């Protein structure tokens, strides 16, 4: 397996585990990657902030509030994080 795909898997795993710490009922298989994430998982502003803090702690990325609007779907988030961690 090539390098980027591996990274993608690790990122996805990190995102899903962080999401599950906020919303334990979430199943990875239920997530639709190109649909708005917050609506799918019912994350209110507090959940969303805690989710981003979780990602910040896990991946050491800083996500300024001005970037929130770009992070609509799971795919958006993965793309964003990949650009930040590499």
């Amino acid at each position, binding site marked *: 397996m090539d390098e980027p795909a591996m990274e993608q898997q690790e990122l996805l795993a990190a995102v899903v585990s962080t999401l599950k710490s906020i*919303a*334990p*009922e979430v199943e990875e298989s239920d997530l639709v990657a190109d649909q708005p994430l917050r609506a799918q998982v*019912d994350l*209110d*502003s*507090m959940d969303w*902030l*805690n989710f*981003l*803090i979780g990602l*910040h702690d896990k991946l050491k990325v*800083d*996500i*300024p*509030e*001005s970037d929130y609007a770009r992070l609509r779907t799971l795919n958006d988030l993965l793309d964003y994080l990949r650009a930040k961690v590499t």
Partner: protein
Amino acid sequence: MIEFKLPSLGADMDKGTLLRWAIRPGDAVKRGQVVAVVDTSKAAVDVESWQEGVVFELLVQPGETIEVGTVLATLLEAGETPETVKPTAPKERTDKAPDVSVTSTPAPLAAPPAAPIATSLRRRVSPAARKHAQEQGIDIEALAGTGPDGAVTLQDVQQAAELRTQAQAAAPDKQAQMRKAIAAAMSRSKREIPHYYLSETVPMRKAQEWLAASNEKRSITERLLMATLQLKAVALALKKYPDMNGFYLNGMHQPSQAIHIGVAISLRQGGLIAPAIHEVAEKSLDQLMRDLTDLVRRARAGSLRSSEMSDPTLTVTNLGDQGVDTVYGVIYPPQVALVGFGRIREMPWVTDGALCVMPAMTASLAADHRVSDGHYGALFLAEVRERLQRPEQL
């Protein structure tokens, strides 16, 4: 002697199940100390004592379901010794029939000394009881004894084990129980409280810009949510309009000096809980953010304190995250008002004769007509709006 009773933990809770004691006979109890953990249909609540003393007797066993007002334990006041007070007669306890109403009937202090007066706070435990407790993993010190001199008998341990099993088996019913509790409180609200409703469109540009600029300077862990600005604005408005704050009890409004705002928190597994953040008007936004984060976390984990459950003086509910424009709230008795916030959306707005696009939100008020009128409510809501126009002063 001080009787420590199960306090009311909100209008939708009239009984609870003692999960465990956090104190033992002989312990000194301070004001605000958590003395027991009581399971309600909504959360495991850390019950605090508001009196000081030394624990004399524990009268209820873990696993027992008791009504609000039931004496859970007795404390010795300063100057009292075990020799000067008499143990509470076992028959005053709720014992096995939790549904038999013993609400707020305090055990008479001068119970006939059926048993010899306890001379020491050391527990007496029958050897069989001790052995059985060890096998079952039951903390014998946390049990109230029914034997002579308050001794813990084998029966006490067996009963505790049985009650624990029952409590564990009852867990799946929690959802249904919570629904029932909410139903009872909201039915009471709609039956007893003549609600009136007002709403006000609040321009949010200033608050949004201030918050964005403020958060830009903060690390992610210190960021504020708009909810903290809303809570503070409501609290400051309440200082000016105290008729919105407090309780309606015994046929009259009892305004509260303190401003403890109940925050409606939806639970992921369903249901709702609205514990208080205390003294909101006196706290900085940073402190409110820390308190709110902690409260939401603990509410969802099912671990709250009795004071948070029993003393909100007004509730705020924010359904904006769900895309709702306007909240038509139901007042949580015995409170006298509820403030709702909808989502912030961009809308056409006219300022100085010119049309522009304005981020705005609907703030709504449900208030008790027995206490206030629409005019007063409107002034209060306008004050909330004005406070949100000066976010730097919140």
